[in-house]
């Protein structure tokens, strides 16, 4: 028995992938439970939350772990969405959905290589400006090539019929018929979980440590043998691939890929999601996405109660994001997750000796999918880029530094 426990504990701390998979599985259970107990409309909202979460997850890896900012992720999502729309143009479209998503990811990834190669030469405000121009420029391409890309009306997306095995499986597991909205929500959340597991593993790997090293100190990283350009491009490409998957899920959820869906606002919204949640943390990205999805209704209702007209009250939500975003950078650069974790760790540090193996589960049980994912990603969620002192990266840098 004791031996078993030791083995389990050893496994828990030793196998990152295993831990991530277990968390992912738990996440899947939560998703099914939530999805089955809410209405069709809420399911579509959940799907929206998932695609925003996927994109925010990609962005938080780029900005939080590698220190690159991108205002162009909305444009990258557009590329994923249009790829999806082109492949799913009518009910007879025979490409299976997983292949469609894969295609969206691959196409966006290829574009990401090009953008990333250019972005790797830029930093800070220059990078922000260039990606801002990207966000504004890309919708114009869809307008210009109206024949192929549908112009302002965009391309309609026809979600293929739900496969029989999915219907059967859903009924077997839940005892309810699978509605289309629920199906879409499952698709989006499944994609999210897969994406997050991959991102979490990647950020814990050698590649992820290089990203952080570049973020913290370029010169030291370079001395340690990290190739700056390559590291930057790889972070951008991974992030772009996530945006492509997000775009595909957006197309499936909204049933449309149109330029109006990919405005500058979308890119700024994604950035606010990752800042709100805490840069570099996947759990934070998910919390940010949840806020973006569900906060507007709450805030709008409050505004209407306060005597504003519906239309003006609807503008309160972005006002709240914006204000919170400014306050987060000024007062709590660690974001929501980082601040909560910091508080928890501090209290724990006072009351008991550190219990390294269990911090993960305790941080925030409500978002089980990714809480531990983020804790896995080390202390970085607590640090805004540039100010962070990440033991992981310092370790890498010093050890490599000593060999040169």
């Amino acid at each position, binding site marked *: 028995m004791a031996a078993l426990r030791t083995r389990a504990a050893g*496994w828990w701390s*030793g*196998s990152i*992938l*295993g*831990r991530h*998979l*277990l968390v992912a*599985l738990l996440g899947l*259970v939560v998703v099914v439970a939530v999805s089955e107990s809410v*209405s*069709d*409309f809420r399911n*579509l909202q959940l799907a*929206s939350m998932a695609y925003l979460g996927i994109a925010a997850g990609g962005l938080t890896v780029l900005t939080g772990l590698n220190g690159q900012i991108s205002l162009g992720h909305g444009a990258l999502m557009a590329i994923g969405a249009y790829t999806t729309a082109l492949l799913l143009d009518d009910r007879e479209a025979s490409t299976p959905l997983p292949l469609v998503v894969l295609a969206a990811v691959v196409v966006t990834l290829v574009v990401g290589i090009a953008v990333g190669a250019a972005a790797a030469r830029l930093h800070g405000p220059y990078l922000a400006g260039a990606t801002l121009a990207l966000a504004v420029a890309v919708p114009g391409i869809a*307008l210009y090539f*109206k024949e192929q890309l549908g*112009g*302002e*009306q*965009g391309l*309609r997306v*026809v979600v293929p019929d739900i496969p029989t095995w999915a*219907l*059967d499986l*859903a*009924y*077997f*597991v*839940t*005892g309810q*018929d699978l*509605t*289309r*909205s629920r199906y879409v929500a499952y698709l989006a959340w499944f994609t999210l979980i897969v994406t997050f597991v991959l991102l979490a593993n990647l950020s814990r790997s050698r590649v992820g440590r290089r990203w952080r090293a570049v973020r913290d100190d370029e010169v030291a990283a370079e001395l340690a043998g990290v190739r700056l350009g390559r590291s930057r491009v790889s972070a951008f490409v991974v992030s772009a691939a996530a945006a492509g998957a997000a775009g595909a899920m957006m197309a499936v959820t*909204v*049933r*449309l890929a*149109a330029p*109006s*869906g990919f405005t500058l606002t979308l890119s700024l919204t994604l950035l606010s999601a990752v800042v709100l949640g805490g840069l570099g943390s996947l759990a934070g990205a998910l919390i940010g996405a949840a806020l973006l999805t569900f906060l507007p209704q709450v805030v709008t209702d409050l505004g209407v109660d306060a005597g504003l007209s*519906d*239309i003006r009250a*609807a503008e309160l939500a972005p006002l709240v994001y914006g204000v919170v975003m400014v306050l987060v950078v000024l007062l709590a650069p660690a974001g929501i997750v980082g601040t909560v974790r910091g508080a928890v760790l501090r209290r724990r540090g006072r009351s008991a000796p550190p219990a390294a193996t269990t911090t993960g589960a305790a941080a925030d049980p409500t978002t089980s999918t990714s809480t531990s994912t983020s804790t896995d990603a080390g202390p970085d969620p607590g640090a805004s880029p540039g100010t962070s002192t990440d033991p992981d990266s310092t370790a890498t840098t010093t050890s490599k530094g000593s060999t040169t």
Partner: protein
Amino acid sequence: MRRRLHRSATLVAAATAGALLLGACGAGGRDDDGGDGDGGGGDGGGASAPGVTEDSIKIGAHFPLTGVAAPGYSEIPTGAKAYFDYVNAQGGIYGRQIEYVVRDDGYNPTNTSSVTNELVLEEEIFAMVGGLGTPTHSAVVDFLNDEGVPDFFVSSGSLQWGDDPSAYPYTFGWQTDYEIEGKIIGQYVAENMPDAKVGLFLQDDDFGDDAEKGVRQFLDDQVVAAERYTSGNTDVGPQIAKLQASGADMVLSFNTPSYTALSQLVALKLGYEPQWFYTNVGSDADLVGSLLSRFSEGAVEGGSSSLDGVLTTEYIPGVDQPDDPWVQLWQKVWDEHGEKGELTNYRVYGMSHAYAFVQALQAAGEDLTRDGIVEAMEEIGADLEGPQLAPFRYSGDSHLGISGMRIVEIKDGAGEDLTPVLVTDIGDAEITEDDSGQDGDAPPESGVPEAP
């Protein structure tokens, strides 16, 4: 070592999944013959249709209440609401009060999709009534038809709302479609101004495309340039400059009202003075005048006279005809139930399609169902009287709306008739004078249509 650990992780995962599946086993096998399928169909029977109760009917619509298309268009739902309130005050339809839910989509198709989800799935509306815009509504027309939601009287003249009822059985157009508007305008210009060099100024979507198709049936030889603008981009300088460079002395414009103001403004800047011919959609003299008058103190004549001499079309009577019995009804409705502000042509538009929807509710009878109202409309739609100058074309084969219009010249903010009401259909149907007498009819005393 690592690999073994991974394998054990997978094992744990698989075991957990298995346990979960077993735990859920009580659910048994899926019922394969479709079940009650509460999501789609909507053919509930009786008063059990979604959105319908003993004493209420909930309907919804998406309109641009903000953004580039909001001037003018945001007034349409206020007109429709005033008329529904008027009907409610008279006891409603079969004792049911009409509850009208409007959502803002900012003329942004992506938003339209999300507000329509909300209307259909969360608000559980019985029908969509008057959803506005070609790019916007085309984003949701598939969804509405998949869900079996009656999609009545789309506020747009695109052909897709009615030319193929087998593809979209629940969708009905209402206003005169852009293709026959293009045809009627095209024929008029070809007959009366055979020497004109014609330029086209088009919104870059089905609106412009349908109209261009109609116009070119008659004017293909006379068209010297066709320029398109994107809704949302307020710089139309290059397009107007190209029309000017092409030598066009007559411009047929198919655009929204803001773009009428912008095109007039750019033309002033370029010193370009062709004969303008605006589509009905973009020619509201009061609105365009109020947008234009502010631009420059004294440099542009303000008020409704700013579009003087411009040609346009008309398919319902507007506020410039205060003696028309329909307009008198609308004025009364607006005075009793309207919000602040004057009765405008946009509010008249809203009331006019609200009137047609009340007719549809009457025709569908007391046992209101989604399929029932569609069938009723196909059956009697073509004979309905109403404010429209020409009859609807509703039948089992066509869900297209009003079949014609007349051409007018704007003088002092009012339309002066240049032709009688002309009717036709899409494709190569001939253009004839209307003989239905719809032009001269008047509303019933009560102002509420009676059951047929």
